């Protein structure tokens, strides 16, 4: 049986990254990338809705997906810090997408075998979605890393920006359906392979940032939530 904490953590990861990626709409380098990033964001939002709904059911306190998304404050969110980081330039976003989609791919691939039917069903659908997210990021990391001097400089900077947040993805999680520490090896094989093909070095290990799973977030999450939540809080139950 999946724990409420675990469903909430995975749902929050997807929700917060969906909101971040949505910020690219109408601001991406090309119209085609606007659409690509919006598609990815909507895939993640779909995952978040199912997972948060399920987290609410497991909690048994009558909270639905909207209650969990709109009526919690930042200290109650359980997403990793990586997904709440500001988008930065396109290279920073692609660095984060590569890191996170490669992680999500290994995660959902294994969650398909979860004894919990709901989680296994979510994973079965989501693994195809994140397979594409991983491919999308891979294509861009290859092109930016192996492109011009400027694109390469930005890609290196993007990887250095997100790298301190990698360790948190693989921290042990009490009550997880899939042990996050087991995902590190396949993740490393994939991501390091992409970086090698792009002619990029793996960033040097630095002090790692953590705390998201315990509700200890960066200052960026509060601003993101203000934008995400203010309509629903101003007009509870609003629909259109």
């Amino acid at each position, binding site marked *: 049986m999946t724990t409420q904490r675990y469903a909430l953590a995975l749902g929050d990861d997807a929700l917060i990254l969906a909101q971040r990626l949505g910020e690219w709409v109408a601001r991406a*380098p*090309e119209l*085609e990338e606007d*659409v*690509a990033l919006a*598609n990815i964001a909507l895939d993640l939002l779909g995952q978040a809705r199912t997972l948060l709904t399920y987290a609410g059911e497991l909690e048994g306190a009558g909270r639905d997906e909207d209650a969990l998304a709109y009526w919690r404050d930042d200290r109650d969110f359980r997403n990793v810090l990586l997904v709440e980081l500001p988008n930065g330039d396109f290279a920073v976003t692609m660095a984060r997408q590569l890191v996170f989609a490669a992680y999500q791919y290994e995660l959902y691939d294994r969650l398909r075998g979860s004894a919990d039917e709901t989680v296994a069903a979510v994973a079965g659908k989501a693994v195809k979605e994140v397979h*594409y997210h991983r*491919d999308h990021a891979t*294509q861009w990391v290859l*092109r930016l890393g192996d492109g011009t001097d400027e694109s390469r400089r930005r890609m290196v900077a993007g990887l250095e920006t997100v790298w301190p947040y990698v360790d948190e993805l693989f921290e042990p999680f009490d009550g997880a359906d899939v042990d996050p520490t087991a995902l590190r090896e396949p993740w490393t094989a994939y991501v390091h392979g992409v970086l090698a093909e792009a002619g990029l070095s793996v960033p040097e290990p630095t002090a790692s940032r953590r705390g998201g799973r315990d509700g200890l977030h960066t200052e960026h999450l509060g601003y993101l939530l203000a934008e995400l939540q203010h309509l629903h809080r101003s007009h509870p139950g609003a629909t259109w």
Partner: protein
Amino acid sequence: MSAEWPLWEVFVRAKRGLSHIHVGSLHAPDATMAVRNARDVYTRRGEGVSIWVVPSDQITASSPDEKDAFFDPAGDKVYRHPTFYDVPVEAKHL
């Protein structure tokens, strides 16, 4: 940046057995990305099972100036349609 990305024509096959149909065009830096952009722009509502992309500048088109000479002569050649011919009643299994 747009000026640097070439234009691609996109063809989508709706399902097995049907032909690829031209659905529109888009910008992409290369063929690999053009297929991905086409997936995101033209198949996000389940429109297709296969995508072709072709560089727009690789298409040779007939000229609007040649329209009369090219197409008008076919207008009155009714004998080019199979329905123009009477089929003898003795001819079975046509």
